[in-house]
């Protein structure tokens, strides 16, 4: 080995290490990958938000691609993504947007829908974080893509905007449609 190439070894190690650390800076430590992706959706037996008498189950998710959106009226990012959810529900007839109202109160949740509109085909009401724990929810908003067979295909942590919908969610929904 010549002297020059030997002298380059520390430099190349340094560059490799710097590249690794720089890559690490791009990762978001808040996004914890979910072990539920590609697993059948967990149990979801809860009353409906709009009709307290009506009990809903995970059967409601079958037969159509579903976006299961975890939201609450106290969550600012949920308000931020609300308009995008309205658009998604309006423009995609073969996708149902299902709400999981999480750690919220019924009057406040209903008031928010009255104020900003209601994109949800159905809303499960989970004030005590019962289904939330089974679904591994640790913040709002979170959105799961569940295919027509009831299998979770993706979990989005954080709000959805147009770009997230186009680049992250739509390709997976296309796959679900193709099944």
């Amino acid at each position, binding site marked *: 080995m010549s002297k020059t190439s030997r002298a380059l070894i520390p430099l190349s190690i340094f560059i490799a290490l710097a590249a690794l650390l720089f890559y690490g800076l791009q990762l978001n430590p*808040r996004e914890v990958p979910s072990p539920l992706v590609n697993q059948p959706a967990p149990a979801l037996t809860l009353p409906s938000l709009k009709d307290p008498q009506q009990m809903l189950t995970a059967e409601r998710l079958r037969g159509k691609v579903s976006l299961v959106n975890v939201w609450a009226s106290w969550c600012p990012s949920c308000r931020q993504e609300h308009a995008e959810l309205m658009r998604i529900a309006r423009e995609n007839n073969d996708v149902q947007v299902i709400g999981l109202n999480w750690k919220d109160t019924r009057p406040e949740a209903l008031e928010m829908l009255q104020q900003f509109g209601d994109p949800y085909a159905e809303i499960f009401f989970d004030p005590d974080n019962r289904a939330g724990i089974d679904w591994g929810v640790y913040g709002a908003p979170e959105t799961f893509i569940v295919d027509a067979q009831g299998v979770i295909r993706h979990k989005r942590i954080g709000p959805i905007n147009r770009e997230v919908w186009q680049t992250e969610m739509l390709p997976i929904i296309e796959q679900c449609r193709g099944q």
Partner: protein
Amino acid sequence: MKQHYQLAAAALLISLLAIGTAAAYTLENFTFDDPARTAEFRTLIGELRCLVCQNESLAGSQAGVAQDLRKEVYRMMQEGKSRDEIVAFLVARYGDFVLYEPPLKPATYILWFGPFLFVGIGGWLLWRTLQRDKATPEPDLTAAEQARLQQLLTKTGD
């Protein structure tokens, strides 16, 4: 100067008291008939990570989700579930991330064995360098060099 020390001591005392009450506030309701079980519960929630405030354990976090999970762990322990069953329940929902100590499996080999690997590489490089120094002793001087050395030695002797 003395006043400053008193002020600092008072501030320290207040913050320690605040920490004490916060811990008592979150954990006082979680007791079992068997004190060993209470101790087991406190150890377990200290080993589980809160996903919201990621540098805190379930025991220390005031986040709503952490409170829910403490209740859930408490409920499962009251049902007589073992530590391993409770950990498996949480890992199935939140992933290995809830564990402060990652499990040993192929994806974490580099994490567990990486440091030993690097120490091994460093040790090998050191050993090799030392061996090479030993293997190549200084060659004997030639006749011409010997004469020059003699000349230099006599010169400095003046």
